[in-house]
């Protein structure tokens, strides 16, 4: 069974948890006390990921670390439908996975500063986050105009959406107002209406009504 080193308040862990559940995979969740325990810097966890970062999984005796890498790994290994990591769109998928990394470096950093007392340049992190939000908002507006609901021009979400969603949905915890980003807000709503979607703490707690009640 897949062992998943998880922290419920981490957006990066949310990505992995979401895909594990979408793929219907059995997994064992091992809670790592990130804050205030700093357990991800403990010798036990450093054996699994020497970078001391969450999330990480152990599958078939092999460790995979980094949220984006785990998404690729799980989709390639277990998604028979091929929807989550579509073969003919790999370039686009990787582009958004890299984009998601930048979201971690900006919006998530601002959130760590506000909520968990990290010392860093928060105004720089916010400015960078807003720049990224503009790029993705514009992309989504034009995608919607062409009749597409997701980051890729496909009738279903992919790991690109999974990778980008959590830190955008948590932006306000880092003091970034999402109000000017209309298309991003609609895309988030669509995501939160997906089957088996469970909000993580920090996202609004109530389930969204389904469009076809």
């Amino acid at each position, binding site marked *: 069974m897949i062992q998943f080193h998880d922290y*419920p308040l981490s957006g990066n862990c949310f990505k992995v948890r979401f895909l594990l559940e979408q793929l219907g995979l059995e997994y064992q969740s091992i809670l790592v006390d990130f804050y*205030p325990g700093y357990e991800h810097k403990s010798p036990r966890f450093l054996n699994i990921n020497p970078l001391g970062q969450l999330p990480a999984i152990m599958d078939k005796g092999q460790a995979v670390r980094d949220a984006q890498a785990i998404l690729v790994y799980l989709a390639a290994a277990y998604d028979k439908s091929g929807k989550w990591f579509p073969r003919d769109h790999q370039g686009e998928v990787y582009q958004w996975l890299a984009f998601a990394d930048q979201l971690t470096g900006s919006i998530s950093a601002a959130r760590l500063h506000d909520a968990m007392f990290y010392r860093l340049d928060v105004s720089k992190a916010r400015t960078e986050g807003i720049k990224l939000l503009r790029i993705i908002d514009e992309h989504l507006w034009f995608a919607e105009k062409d009749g597409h609901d997701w980051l890729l021009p496909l009738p279903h979400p992919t790991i690109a959406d999974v990778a980008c969603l959590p830190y955008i949905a948590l932006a306000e915890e880092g003091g970034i107002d999402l109000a000017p980003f209309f298309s991003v807000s609609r895309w988030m709503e669509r995501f939160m209406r997906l089957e088996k979607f469970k909000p993580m703490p920090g996202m609004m707690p109530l389930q969204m009504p389904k469009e076809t009640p």
Partner: protein
Amino acid sequence: MNALTPLTADQSYLRHFWHPVATVNELEAADPAGNGPIGRTLLDEPLVIAKLNGKYVAMRDRCAHRYAKLSVGKVLENNRIQCPYHGWEYGATGRCELMPACPSDAIPKKAFTPAYACEERYGIIWVRLDSSWDCTNIPYCEAWENPEFKRQIIAEPYNWNSSAERRWENFTDFSHFAYVHPGTLYDPAYSEPAIVPVDRVGGELRFFMEPGRDMLDTLPDDSPLGSWNYRNSMPFSVNLSIRLYKNDKPFLLWTTSSPVSENSCRNFMIIAHTEDDLPDSQPLNFQKLVLAEDQPVIETQPGPIYLDEVSLPTDKISNQYRKWLRELSTAAAKGEEAFKAALFTDVTESK
């Protein structure tokens, strides 16, 4: 225009209360000797916190010379705080005692930084910015008073982009449980809380509440369901003493919000329980989940409370709390006697 009227236009009354600024653990994390210094902000005032000669001190975080932050400096072996810029050394009273550039010159009268009343209690460092009336006490906490408790956990403080007033109201608000904490603190089927008597006793807002026992079947085991007894020292403290339904044992949730500024607060939490081998992470993780459910909602509120907000009979606790804050603010503007009377005149509704 619909301009809003704040509940308390004058916030200076808050300077007369003791507020938590840091845990002893935090000071130890910043410096293995546990002497600091660390920088914290209270009511918009930057403070440097340190331990000098075994006693905690809080001073304005600003060297008198070129306004560098003392919290970026260090605590020397001679029990002084040294400014990081030109090495001026400050003693526990806030006076400069050495200017290394001209060690033999007389030290100017203005070479000081204001020091504030500072105490350690419950593993937490407390500061009172204005002690001229000296009439307030560090908030009540039952954790070390009740011998039944076997373990007291001092949690790592957490920050919210919300005011301390809003944080307090959120902690004592019963009618949001069904919406914000479905399945953690409350069963969504119970959204109608009882309206309970509210008393003012010795500067505390006290009330008692018994949530439905049937929820034991639906809520997680970590949910502290029981009879809830509140003794809340004004203005931002909550001592929630619980008699758990599941085993009839006491369980304590204590929290005090520290007003960093109008729109931000730093929150301190102590959990006490009677278990022998419950890992600290278990109750802490449960509280973390609950807090993370509240935070995004509460952060959409503006920091200040406004008189324009509509209140219902079911908001009784919040209404009584607001009334008292307003009275304290007005009384403090009148002076010491009025303030003492507003804080310590008991009003009891319950039998």
